[in-house]
C-alpha cells in the first residue's frame, strides 16, 4: 500500500513561498494531534515534491531553537534558509506599517522588532509569492504587497455532492 494521495492541488501551488515558524515546526512532523499540522506537512511535502521553492527565514531558526544547540543546517534543494540581511532590513524599516515597529513600555525603551516582522521582511526581500503562516495577527503587521496564506488554502477543492435528477421514463413504459 502506498501513501495516500496528497490533498494539495498541484496546479494551485505557488512557485516560491517562505514558511513562518508556525508552519515550519509543524511541517517537521511535530504536533500531529493538531488538525492544522496535517495541512502543514501535506503542503510542504507537495511543494518539495513538485520542485517548488520553499524558504525558511534565519530568524525562524532562532525562534525554533529556544536555547538548544543547532547542528549544521542541511544544504538540500528541499528547503532554503534565507538570511535577514541589509536588504531585508531596508524592506522592514521602510515598507512595514509603523505599528509593526513598536516601542516596548517599561524597562526596554529601544524599538523592539519581533521575530515575525523580520520573517515577513525576509519573505519580501527574497521575492516570495506567499508567506505561509497560521498566525492570524500577521495580517495587520505586513505591507499590502505581501500575500499571506494558510497551508490549507492550497488544498484541492472537494467535489460537491449534488442530487441526480430522475431519469426520464419512456412513453408507455412508465408506471401508471
Amino acid at each position, binding site marked *: 500500500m502506498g501513501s495516500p494521495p496528497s490533498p494539495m492541488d498541484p496546479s494551485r501551488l505557488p512557485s*516560491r513561498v517562505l514558511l513562518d*515558524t*508556525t508552519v515550519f*515546526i*509543524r*511541517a*517537521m*512532523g*511535530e*504536533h500531529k494531534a*493538531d488538525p492544522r499540522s496535517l495541512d502543514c506537512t501535506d503542503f*510542504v*511535502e507537495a511543494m*518539495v*515534491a513538485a*520542485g517548488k*521553492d520553499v524558504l525558511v527565514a534565519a530568524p525562524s531558526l532562532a*525562534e*525554533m*531553537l*529556544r536555547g*538548544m*544547540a*543547532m*547542528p549544521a*543546517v*542541511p*544544504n*538540500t*534543494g*528541499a*528547503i*532554503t534558509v*534565507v*538570511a535577514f*540581511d*541589509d*536588504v531585508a532590513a*531596508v524592506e522592514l524599516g521602510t515598507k512595514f506599517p509603523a505599528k509593526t515597529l*513598536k516601542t*516596548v513600555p*517599561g*524597562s*526596554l525603551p529601544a524599538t*523592539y522588532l*519581533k*521575530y*515575525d516582522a523580520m520573517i515577513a521582511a525576509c519573505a519580501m*526581500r*527574497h*521575492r516570495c509569492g506567499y508567506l505561509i503562516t*497560521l*498566525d492570524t*495577527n*500577521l495580517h495587520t503587521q505586513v505591507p499590502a504587497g505581501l500575500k499571506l496564506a494558510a497551508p490549507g488554502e492550497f488544498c484541492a477543492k472537494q467535489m460537491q455532492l449534488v442530487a441526480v435528477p430522475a431519469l426520464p421514463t419512456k412513453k408507455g413504459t412508465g408506471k401508471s
Partner: protein
Amino acid sequence: MSGVAAADDTHLKLEIDGPGVKPETLDPLATLELGRAYFRLLQRIAEEQEVSLELTGLTVEDKCAALSVTPGNFKLAHQTALRADRIVSGGELSSHRLEVAAEDFRAAVRALPVEQSVAVLVGKQRMPVAREPAAKVAPRRSITRLRAMVVTVGAGHQPFARLSSKSELRAFSVKVKDVPTVQLLARHLCEVLDVDVAVDRDAEGLIVRGELLEFTPVSESKNLDEWRAWFASAGGADWSGVEDVEAALGRDDEEPRVDG
C-alpha cells in the same frame, strides 16, 4: 584619413576640441587610445546587458576633430552612450569590469593636453567628458548568503563568476579570488549553490559588483527526510510537548513580549 564632417543624426562621435585642434594636429597615439577606450567601454556596457552593439566604420571629421562611427542600432548606441556618461562621471555604480573600462577611458582623456577637451556626440546630444568623476556614488556594502545558479565563469585578467539568484532582481557578477576557484566553480555551471558574497548595491538595491567569499554545493532532494532528522537533532521533539505553538512563539500577543 580625410576630414569629412557628418551632419546627420545617426553617428556616434568622440569630439576633441581646443585651440588649434584639427585632425592634422592631433597626437595619433593619444587619439586612437581615446577612441579605443571609449568604444571598448560601450561594448562592455552592451555585453553586460547581453545585447550586441555593432559599430562600423571610422571617420576623422574635420570640425575641431572627431572620431565618428556608425552604430548598427542607433537607439541602442544612444542608450549605451548615456549610461557610459553616467558611469564615467561617477553618477552610476558599475561592475568591476565596467569600472576598469571607464577608468581606462578617463585615463585616455587625462592623457590629452590639458587645453583639449573631449565630448561625446550622439545624434543631437552633446555630452562633455570630465577628466575626473564629479561625484562618486557611495555603494551600499554588505555580506550576504544567497542560493544562486552559476551562469558563467571567466578566468581572464580578473577571474569572475556570473550568478543568478531568485532573491535578486537581476543576474550579477562577482570577483573570484583565483583561477583554481574558477575551475571548481566551472564544475557547477548551471547548478544551484549557496554562496557567501560581499556585494555593493546601488540606490535601487541592485547588486552592481561583488566578491565571492565562499560557496557550498546544494544536494538535490525531493523529500524532507534530511530536514526532519536535522529538526529532531536540533531539539525538535521539545516542541511536541508544547500545547500551543502560537502562544509559545508569542504570536497571540497583541503587544510585543518582554521575556525575562
